[in-house]
């Protein structure tokens, strides 16, 4: 399915690349700084969400991807390949482990298949964006760690079975790991690798 439809790739990106990128990044930064808290991405409604990518995920990608960031797309997200190649110039790679960013839907593969970095360079890891059905309903987990005063709760609808268990297993590998962004519609919430979770 490597076919690229011209109409998709030409769907518009940010109306104001400088300030929309900044606003999208700040929403992402706020989300990373306060794991589990839902942030709205305040960009103009002009950006099109190709394939199954929501607007928040699209804005995140437009703000942060470029030719220096290999991208992996899960099969359910492959419709966005042309659009992201066109607007970001990012190479699309076939292996999750080679990606600095990955976008998936309910078909998230095994988390340890991504680039988990090394103990010496834990910054060289994949950042995973998961487009989910809801950030407010579904299985709830309790979060604690940096960015969270005591505990926080996060409910996500649309994750494959066993997802949280995999994420819990990665905690022991810290500082290696995967930083995850859950995106739905205009909103996103982050789960950086430093966050410790307990299934409710």
């Amino acid at each position: 399915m490597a076919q690229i439809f011209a109409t998709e790739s030409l769907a518009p990106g940010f109306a104001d690349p400088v300030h929309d990128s900044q606003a999208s990044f700040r929403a992402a930064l706020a989300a990373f700084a306060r794991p589990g808290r839902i942030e709205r991405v305040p960009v103009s409604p002009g950006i099109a969400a190709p394939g199954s990518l929501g607007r928040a995920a699209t804005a995140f990608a437009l703000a942060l991807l470029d030719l220096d960031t290999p991208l992996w797309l899960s099969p359910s997200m492959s419709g966005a390949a042309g659009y992201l190649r066109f607007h970001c110039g990012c190479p699309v790679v076939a292996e999750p482990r080679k990606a600095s960013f990955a976008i998936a839907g309910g078909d998230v593969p095994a988390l340890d298949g991504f680039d988990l970095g090394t103990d010496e360079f834990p910054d060289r890891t994949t950042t995973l964006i998961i487009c989910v059905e809801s950030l407010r309903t579904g299985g709830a987990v309790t979060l604690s760690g940096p960015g969270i005063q005591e505990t926080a709760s996060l409910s996500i609808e649309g994750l494959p079975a066993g997802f949280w268990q995999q994420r819990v297993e990665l905690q022991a590998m810290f500082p290696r790991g995967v930083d995850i962004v859950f995106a739905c519609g205009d909103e996103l919430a982050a789960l950086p690798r430093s966050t410790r979770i307990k299934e409710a």
Partner: protein
Amino acid sequence: MMDGTSATAATTTGYNFAYLDEQTKRMIRRAILKAVAVPGYQVPFASREMPLPYGWGTGGIQVTASIIGQADVLKVIDQGADDTTNAVSIRKFFGRTTGVATTERTIEATIVQTRHRVPETKLRDDQIIVYQVPVPEPLRWLEPREAETRKMHALSEYGPMHVKLYEDIARYGRVTTAYDYPVMVDGRYLMRPSPIPKFDNPKLDMCPALQLFGAGREKRIYAVPPYTSVKSLDFEDHPFTIESWDEACAICGSTESFLDEVITDDKGGRMFVCSDTDYCGERRKESGDEPA
């Protein structure tokens, strides 16, 4: 309420908003997210030559330039003061390249860029503080080699730092580090808080604001997320303490702030005043002793 702020009308043309090109901002933004995700770990980044010299805040400037937006209100301090020349110069730089509002009041700022101090006024969770960092590596004076210190961080091998501090105690009865006092972040990474006096170290612990650290010449960015444990290294029998003064601020009378010593004559005359000029000024206003 923005009474203390001032917007700069004309921005410098010919340069992008906040000076950096968008590709550079993306690279720095990606580094900042990694830094937040691994609190206290120094993320290498491709620091750019800035129009200010390395060592003068280029790391902080690159971080601020990558996060700042039109709605932000920026405060810049050096040694706690808004009117020191380097603070003025950096504030002017952002005024010219972004046109955003600037302020001298801590409570009005959304972003505070600082060198060597943390404001006395408690920061809020809707604020970001950006520290200018000259040397980010806490182990550097113990081990000059990057390849080695990187391994030590990977293995959490911080014994040599404890030994160094303990040798101080054995020789002098106390730790002889007065500023840039090393801290442990979230129990995992040893970190330099930048050359703030150790008086300010407790403000980093469980701070509601996001704290970002930029070292331009050394090309590292690191972060402490809000509500993160930041513990100054110490020993059970020698707990960490901060300095105190016998004097009060000669201007506002504060006995709780960090004081600068001012030499008033050549006969040993001296006085002590708050290093945080905004804090000092606000206290005078509150007491009705407003400066003319």
